């Protein structure tokens, strides 16, 4: 049995933040779950996917976040408790349904999880999705710890049903990816079959209906604000007059700092876990009890601006500081030592921060950016395209996935990226706006997510570029989730459709479509050359299973290669493809037999044919 299905209230279990969130949803009796995977949220859905194989929970990997939220909106309006998960930028994709679903509301509890990523550990921006609460008028809950993530997720469903509105559960990476021992709660039985009652004058958002629904949304907003005033997720620690207002992980840093600085008798902490709508009376009463206040929040000054406005309403003139005063930065995640230093400075507490060590004598440590794995098929594809495009002036729009890493040297294949699916549509723009050869890269999952519409646009508007679809048979970067092109029998799952990328591309009307096997280097280069010569939209589909995924499915037949003494040390292999299985021993290139998977790409590149398979040991 999946550990998150354990019906043992009171038991303590070591859980990742994302597992605790999944558990919270299970305890609330979630019946329906949809997602598009994205770090730092992915482990929530991965666990619910597995749970769905052992229970009557309905779970789906939807094509993208907009689809996920619309599927969820229907389930919730059929009375089911529904959970929709995504990373922060995913909510941009789902923003269209979000804004109007707030007007329509829900019948069964709908919790929308957005996992923000301050410092951008795995993201293209660090937008603060608390603004979506303001924008949509929906309530936001924000946990500070793994334990609270479980409890808050479970209660978010109740809150959603009380308000008749979706509730946004907003986390940050450090909550999603922390682990702690969590006390389990009781599992509420799930109701798996819903019913939809026709009520078009409340569900069909034509202007006349929406004008009324907007009034109701604002009434619900008032209701939510009243609930925030008394929510147990909004609490104070301490009775002093130095006020600190915080949320999420900043509460942990503030609490540790109060202890480290020995100022617990002087401070009063207001932790806002039900952070939108902000509770005005609670905050005004807090301000009244303080002589000065510091607002400690990662990201944008969302709470700070509201608190300053409340102070003005209440005629309070005490100092309130945070980002407006540049005490805290709007950039990146907080470091606990930085929070402590700012608190000490603001409240005038003597504090001798530890000096950063003197590193002047230490040699510079080479950077270690992430890179494509040993034997990754994307490396082979990039090499083939680079060779095929030699002599042409190129622009390489790229997209979001492991393959984005191809923009790093020595491959350096990637010139422009803004969001999921942007490779295809920006290729349309670059090919019209410039005379350069435009070659765009997109992965299989990203193609289904939001590349399709761009390709339709390209054919319709008769653009001129080559799109390379890197089909590695899985959604690799976020942890090998399936997508509409995946053979689900690999996962021993039946009852799924499977969409052929090639058939879709041809059906859209792309005239030049070629499928390549990227480990066949010369054939691939020739196929790409032909595609580049085609005037109009051409598509290369490069098919080879992700090596990590193949290994996990026991489909990887490893036969390591080695550098023989025929090597003349010109280093084409290491300098052109930079596979991590290579290392330098003195001046010589060697291949690490523990990491080489035997893709043989380097062996085909070596002009001396000096790279050969490691000879199998003779039996006996």
């Amino acid at each position, binding site marked *: 049995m999946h550990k998150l299905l354990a019906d043992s209230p009171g038991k303590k279990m070591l859980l990742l933040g994302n597992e605790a969130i999944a558990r919270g949803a299970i305890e609330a009796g979630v019946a329906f779950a949809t997602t598009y995977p994205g*770090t730092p949220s992915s482990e929530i859905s991965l666990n619910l996917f597995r749970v769905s194989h052992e229970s009557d929970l309905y779970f789906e990997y939807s094509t993208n976040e907009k689809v996920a939220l619309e599927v969820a909106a229907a389930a919730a309006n059929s009375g089911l408790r529904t959970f929709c998960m995504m990373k922060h930028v995913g909510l941009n994709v789902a923003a269209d349904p979000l804004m109007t679903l707030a007007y329509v509301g829900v019948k069964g509890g709908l919790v929308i999880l957005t996992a923000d990523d301050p410092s951008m550990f795995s993201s293209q921006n660090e937008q603060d999705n608390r603004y979506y609460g303001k924008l949509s008028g929906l309530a936001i809950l924000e946990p500070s710890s793994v334990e609270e993530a479980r409890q808050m997720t479970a209660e978010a469903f109740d809150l959603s049903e009380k308000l008749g509105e979706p509730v946004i559960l907003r986390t940050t990476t450090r909550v999603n990816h922390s682990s702690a021992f969590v006390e389990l709660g009781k599992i509420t039985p799930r109701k798996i079959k819903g019913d939809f009652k026709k009520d078009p004058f409340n569900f069909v958002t034509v202007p006349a209906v929406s004008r009324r629904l907007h009034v109701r949304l604002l009434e619900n907003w008032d209701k939510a604000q009243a609930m925030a005033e008394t929510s147990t997720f909004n609490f104070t620690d301490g009775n002093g007059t130095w006020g600190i207002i915080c949320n999420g992980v900043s509460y942990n840093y503030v609490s540790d700092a109060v202890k480290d600085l020995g100022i617990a008798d002087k401070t009063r902490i207001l932790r806002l876990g039900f952070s939108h709508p902000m509770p005005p009376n609670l905050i005004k009463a807090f301000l009244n009890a303080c002589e000065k206040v510091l607002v400690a929040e990662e990201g944008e000054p969302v709470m700070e601006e509201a608190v300053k406005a409340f102070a003005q309403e209440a005629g309070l003139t005490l100092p309130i500081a945070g980002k407006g005063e540049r005490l805290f930065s709007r950039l990146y995640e907080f470091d606990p030592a930085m929070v402590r230093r700012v608190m000490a400075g603001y409240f005038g507490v003597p504090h001798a921060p530890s000096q950063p*060590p003197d590193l002047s004598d230490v040699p510079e440590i080479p950077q270690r950016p992430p890179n494509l794995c040993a034997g990754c098929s994307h490396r082979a594809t990039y090499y083939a395209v680079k060779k095929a495009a030699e002599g042409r002036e190129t622009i390489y729009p790229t997209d979001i996935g492991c393959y984005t890493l191809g923009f790093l040297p020595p491959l350096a294949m990637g010139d422009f990226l803004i969001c999921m699916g942007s490779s295809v549509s920006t290729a349309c723009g670059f090919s019209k706006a410039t005379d350069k050869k435009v070659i765009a890269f997109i992965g299989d999952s990203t193609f289904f997510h939001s590349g399709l519409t761009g390709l339709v646009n390209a054919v319709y508007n008769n653009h001129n570029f080559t799109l390379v679809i890197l089909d590695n048979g899985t959604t690799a970067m976020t942890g090998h989730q399936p997508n509409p092109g995946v053979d689900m029998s690999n996962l021993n799952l039946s009852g799924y459709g499977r969409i052929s990328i090639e058939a879709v591309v041809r059906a859209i009307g792309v005239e030049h479509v070629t499928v390549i096997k990227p480990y066949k280097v010369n054939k691939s280069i020739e196929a790409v050359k032909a595609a580049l010569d085609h005037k109009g939209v051409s598509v290369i589909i490069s098919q080879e299973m992700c090596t990590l995924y193949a290994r996990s499915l026991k489909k990887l037949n490893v036969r390591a290669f080695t550098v023989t003494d025929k090597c003349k040390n010109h280093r084409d292999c290491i300098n052109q493809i930079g596979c991590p299985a290579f290392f330098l021993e003195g001046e010589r290139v060697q291949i690490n037999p523990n990491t080489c998977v035997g893709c043989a790409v380097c062996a085909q590149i070596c002009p001396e044919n000096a790279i050969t398979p490691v000879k199998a040991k003779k039996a006996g």
Partner: protein
Amino acid sequence: MKAFSIYLTGVGGQGIGLISEIILRAADHAGHRVKSVDTHGLAQRGGIVVSQIRMGDTVFSPLIPSGQADLVISLERHEALRAAGTVLKDRACLIYYNTVWQPLPVRLNQAAEVTENDIRDLCRGRGIQVISVFQTDLPDIRMQNMAVLSEIHRHGLIPGIDRKHYQAAMADLMSGAMLEENRGLFDKRLTT
């Protein structure tokens, strides 16, 4: 107990997650309050992987304030130096497995590989205890983390965790031949 902060580092694929979870569970078996935070996602593709563990009765944040780790555990030499230089307290301890996963600039011959002397020099100046671990006859490189764990216990680097707690934690996470091999290695190093 008093707060104790452990910073684990290495290269994606080296098994940081496993050794981190063993320590986390061992601390719990020993009755300590403990929490951790890890790197997931993009960085796991050959980048630096970090896990931070904090033990203590009144610790809120799993994130270690910069420069305040009591112990750095690295499974790789470059990352040992990087972490010792940035997160470790003066007079604290660094234990690392003495293997090298060359970063790209080293493979491209654009930067020099970090040496054992580089690490010794840095640590000597700051009074940091250095323990370098290496085992020539390791049956599988994926067991380097277990060799390090065994040395952590042998030198008593984490207060309040005993052999039985480490063993119980291993049994929580592994079974069958994998458990036998890993526990065998852990025990063997303690008796030689």
